[in-house]
């Protein structure tokens, strides 16, 4: 699993490639938490999951934890370009209800 982070204004864009599970989620959690701690103006978290091939409850748990950080800042959570399998897992886990699905990062950046 690889991920890259980019800050644009008040948004943190995180592009995920590969599988987010018990093994790969701790580093992912640490890096995003560091970005939150370093940038107190961050309000929008945009996960580009176009190249994410798998997620289970370990990965979902980490994302939910970051959503709680966002809530403290009255921010919002976005998923960009989720494939049908990933969408199904996000919907079933309930994360769909607390996030916004979008077709492109650009589209989200124009809204925030």
């Amino acid at each position, binding site marked *: 699993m690889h991920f890259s982070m980019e800050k644009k204004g008040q948004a943190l864009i995180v592009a995920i490639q590969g599988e987010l599970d018990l093994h790969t989620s701790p580093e992912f959690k640490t890096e995003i938490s560091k970005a939150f701690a370093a940038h107190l103006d961050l309000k929008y978290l945009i996960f580009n999951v176009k190249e994410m091939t798998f997620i*289970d409850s370990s990965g979902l748990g980490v994302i939910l934890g970051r959503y709680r950080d966002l809530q403290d800042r009255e921010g919002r959570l976005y998923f960009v370009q989720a494939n049908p399998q990933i969408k199904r897992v996000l919907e079933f886990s309930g994360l769909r209800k607390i996030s916004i699905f979008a077709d492109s990062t650009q589209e989200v950046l124009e809204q925030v």
Partner: protein
Amino acid sequence: MENKNWIKLEFPSETRNVAFARTSLALFAAQLDWTLDELEDIKVAVSEAVSNAVIHGYELGEGVVKIKASYLEEELKIEIEDFGRGIADVERAKETGYSSIPEERMGLGFTFMYEYMDEVAVLSQLGEGTKVTLIKKVNNGKH
């Protein structure tokens, strides 16, 4: 001739082996005629069961996870077994949102297994371990 096959896997309880287990099981399961969604269901369910063994069974310590998988015609059966601490209250562990480790995995492990497989059975003995049996039928048993 009956369409049947089986495999056995045994590996140390390590987080990196969760991906190994679900990918191997998906490759084995792919000998049957699933939809893409169904194969994904199997991967998620196996990932949850093996993650439970690693986190809860062995509390991220040393241990061995054993998997037996087989199919007969269109029914796939996967048994995932650990020899760790066992589950004190199996019924409670199955509840959505329940986790013995707060802030972790949303308490969704068993919920995913029940949603994505046709049958789930959990046998656990405190101090001896846990065996989770997952069954899924091609086309949900319908033709």
